[in-house]
C-alpha cells in the first residue's frame, strides 16, 4: 500500500496550520541569486572589469579572449569530473597523471598504426578515453569496494600512472601527432570559436544537466550527503561511486587527447599541478570537500578566475613573482566576499 491511496479524515487541522508555515515559493532567479555560486560569479565579473579598464584593447583582444577560453576549457574538462567526485565527498588526485598517461597511450597507438587514415584519430580518441576509464575504474573499485580513502588511492594511482607513462615514452616527450587533428581540433575554429572551447562547452553542459536534472546527479548528492542513508534508500552506492571515478578518469582521458592536439606532442612534465587546480576550481565554485554540496556553474566560475587572473596580470605587466602574490590575495578576496554575502543573508 502507499498512503497516496489511503483516505484521510483526521488531519484537516494540521493541513491548515501547514499552509500557515509554508514559506513563499522562491522564483528561479531568486534561488540563483541566493546560491553560493553567485558571489564567485560576482568576483569573476569584478576581476574582468578591472582588467578591462586597465588594459582594454589587449585584455579584450580576440587573441586573448580565445586563449583564455581555451585555457579554461582544458581545466574545465578536468573540473567537470572533479565536481562529481567532490560532491560524493571524494577527491581525485590522479587526474593530471591520468591525463598524461592517456595522451601517451593514445599517441603511441596512433603512431603504431603507421597510417594517417581518417580512422586513426578516432582510434586515438578511443584509446585516450579507454585509458582514462581504466584508471578511473581502478580508483573506483579500490574506493567503493575495498573502502580505501580516496586521497591515498588516487595518490597511489597518480604515481603508478605517471611512472607507466614515463616508461612508455622512455622519459622524453613523443611527437608525431597526426597533423589533421592538430589543425582541426588543436588550433581549429568554427565561426571564430576554438573547437576545443566548443567541445568543452558541450561536454560541461551535458555533465551539468546530468548533475542537476537527472537521477544520476541526484544520487551523487545523496551519496555525498549521507552515504549510509543512500545505501538504505536502495541506491547502489558502490556502483555509483565507481561510475563517478570512471567518469573523472574519462574526463582526464579526453583532456589528454585534446592536450595532444594542442601541443602536437605529449607533455609528460607539465601536469603535476592539474589535480590541485581542478580541486581549487571546484571548491571556489562553492563545493564542500565534505560532500553533498556543489554545482557545475559554480565550478565554471571557479575555473575562470585563476585563468583570467593569470592572463590579466601578465597583460597589465605585473612582474612574475608579484603575480603569485596577487593571485593569492584575489582568491582570498573572492571567498571572503562570498562568505560575507552568505552571512548577511542567513543570520
Amino acid at each position: 500500500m502507499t498512503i497516496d491511496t489511503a483516505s484521510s479524515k483526521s488531519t484537516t487541522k494540521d493541513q491548515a496550520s501547514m499552509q500557515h508555515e509554508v514559506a513563499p515559493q522562491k522564483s528561479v532567479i531568486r534561488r540563483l541569486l541566493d546560491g553560493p555560486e553567485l558571489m564567485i560569479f560576482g568576483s569573476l565579473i569584478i576581476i574582468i572589469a578591472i582588467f578591462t579598464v586597465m588594459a582594454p584593447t589587449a585584455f579584450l583582444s580576440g587573441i586573448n579572449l580565445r586563449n583564455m577560453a581555451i585555457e579554461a576549457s582544458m581545466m574545465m574538462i578536468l573540473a567537470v569530473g572533479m565536481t562529481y567526485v567532490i560532491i560524493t565527498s571524494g577527491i581525485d588526485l590522479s587526474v593530471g597523471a591520468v591525463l598524461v598517461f592517456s595522451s601517451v597511450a593514445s599517441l603511441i597507438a596512433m603512431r603504431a598504426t603507421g597510417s594517417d587514415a581518417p580512422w586513426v584519430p578516432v582510434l586515438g580518441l578511443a584509446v585516450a578515453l579507454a585509458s582514462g576509464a581504466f584508471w578511473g575504474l581502478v580508483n573506483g573499485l579500490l574506493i567503493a569496494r575495498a573502502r580505501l580513502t580516496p586521497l591515498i588511492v588516487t595518490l597511489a594511482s597518480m604515481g603508478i600512472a605517471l611512472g607507466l607513462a614515463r616508461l612508455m615514452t622512455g622519459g622524453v616527450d613523443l611527437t608525431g601527432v597526426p597533423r589533421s587533428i592538430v589543425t582541426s581540433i588543436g588550433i581549429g575554429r568554427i565561426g571564430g570559436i576554438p573547437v576545443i572551447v566548443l567541445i568543452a562547452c558541450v561536454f560541461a553542459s551535458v555533465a551539468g544537466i546530468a548533475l542537476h536534472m537527472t537521477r544520476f546527479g541526484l544520487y551523487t548528492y545523496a551519496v555525498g550527503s549521507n552515504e549510509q542513508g543512500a545505501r538504505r534508500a536502495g541506491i547502489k552506492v558502490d556502483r555509483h561511486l565507481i561510475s563517478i571515478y570512471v567518469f573523472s578518469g574519462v574526463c582526464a582521458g579526453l583532456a589528454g587527447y585534446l592536450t595532444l592536439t594542442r601541443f602536437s606532442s605529449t607533455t609528460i612534465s607539465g601536469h603535476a599541478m592539474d589535480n590541485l587546480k581542478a580541486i581549487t576550481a571546484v571548491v571556489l565554485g562553492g563545493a564542500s570537500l565534505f560532500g553533498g554540496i556543489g554545482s557545475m556553474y559554480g565550478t565554471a566560475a571557479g575555473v575562470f578566475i585563476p585563468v583570467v587572473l593569470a592572463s590579466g596580470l601578465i597583460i597589465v605587466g605585473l612582474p612574475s613573482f608579484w603575480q603569485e602574490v596577487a593571485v593569492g590575495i584575489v582568491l582570498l578576496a573572492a571567498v571572503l566576499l562570498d562568505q560575507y554575502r552568505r552571512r548577511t543573508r542567513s543570520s
Partner: protein
Amino acid sequence: ASASDDISVSLVLGQRNSGFHEAIACGARAAAKELGVKVNIQAAPTYSASEQIPVLNAVMATSPSAIVLDPTSSTALIAPLMEAAANGAKIVAVDTTLDDPSVLSAVVGTDNESVGRETAKALAKALDGKSGKVAQINSIPGISTVDARIKGFEEEIKKYPNLTYIGNQFASEDIPKAQQAYVSLMSANPDLIGVVSQSNNPAIGVAGGIRSTETAESVVAIAVDADEAEIEALNEGLLDALVIQQPYEMGYVGFKQAVAAVKGEPVETPIGTGTVTATKANIADPDVAKYLYEGNCI
C-alpha cells in the same frame, strides 16, 4: 624601420627560480637599456610547455613588436608562435630551437647535447683515469633541454671504458629527494666514483648528500649551470666542476637580434653560445667569473 621607442620586446622564459633564466633576463635587460627599447619579462611557473603557453598567449595579447623566448618544447610551441608571428611579432628563440624553425627570426643558444657531452668530459677529466661506476641524478623527465643533455652524456660516457655508467635517477625538482637518491646510490654502490646532474636543483641535492655522507674525497660530482648555491658547493669542494652555459649572452644577443629583426636590419642566425667548464681552481679567473649567473632580473 621604426624608431626604438615604439619597439617593445617581450621575453617569455621557461621557468622561475633558476639562475639560468635569471641570467637570460639580465642579459636582455642590459641590451634593452643599451638600445632604449621597452622590455616586458615574464616567466612560466615551472618548466613545461603547458605552463609556458598561457604566459606566451597573454604576452601576445599586448601586441609586442618581438618576442624572445626559450622554448620549453620543440613542438608544442610551434602553433602558438605561428599565431604570434601572424599577429606581427618577430620571434627569437634562445637556449634551444624548434623542430620547425621557419617561424623564428633568429636562434641564439647552446647545443644541449654538447652540454651533456661536456659534463661527461669534465667527469672523465676529474676522475683522471680512475675506474669505477658513475651515475646521473636529474630532475624530471620530459624537460627537452635536460633530455638532450642526458642523451649527450650517455653517448660521450661510452668513450671511457674505465667508467661504468649505472644509469640515471629522476628525483624531481625536490632537492631532498635528490640527496636521498645520491645516498641510496652510494649505499648500493660503494664503488661509485662519479655523479652528474644536468641542472641546478638536483645538483644542490647531490651536494647536500656529499656533505652529509662526507664523500667529497671519494666521489667526483659534476653539474650544469652556475647558480649561487652551486658555486658555493664548488668552492666547498662538494662539486668538482660546473659546465656553464652563457645565458647572459643568450639574452643579450637574442634581444639585439629581435630588435634588429623588428627594425628590418640584418639578423644573424643561428648564433651558438659555447660552454665553459669551471673548477674550484679557475672559478676566480675573470674569463670564467664573467659567465657566472646573476639574478634578480625577472
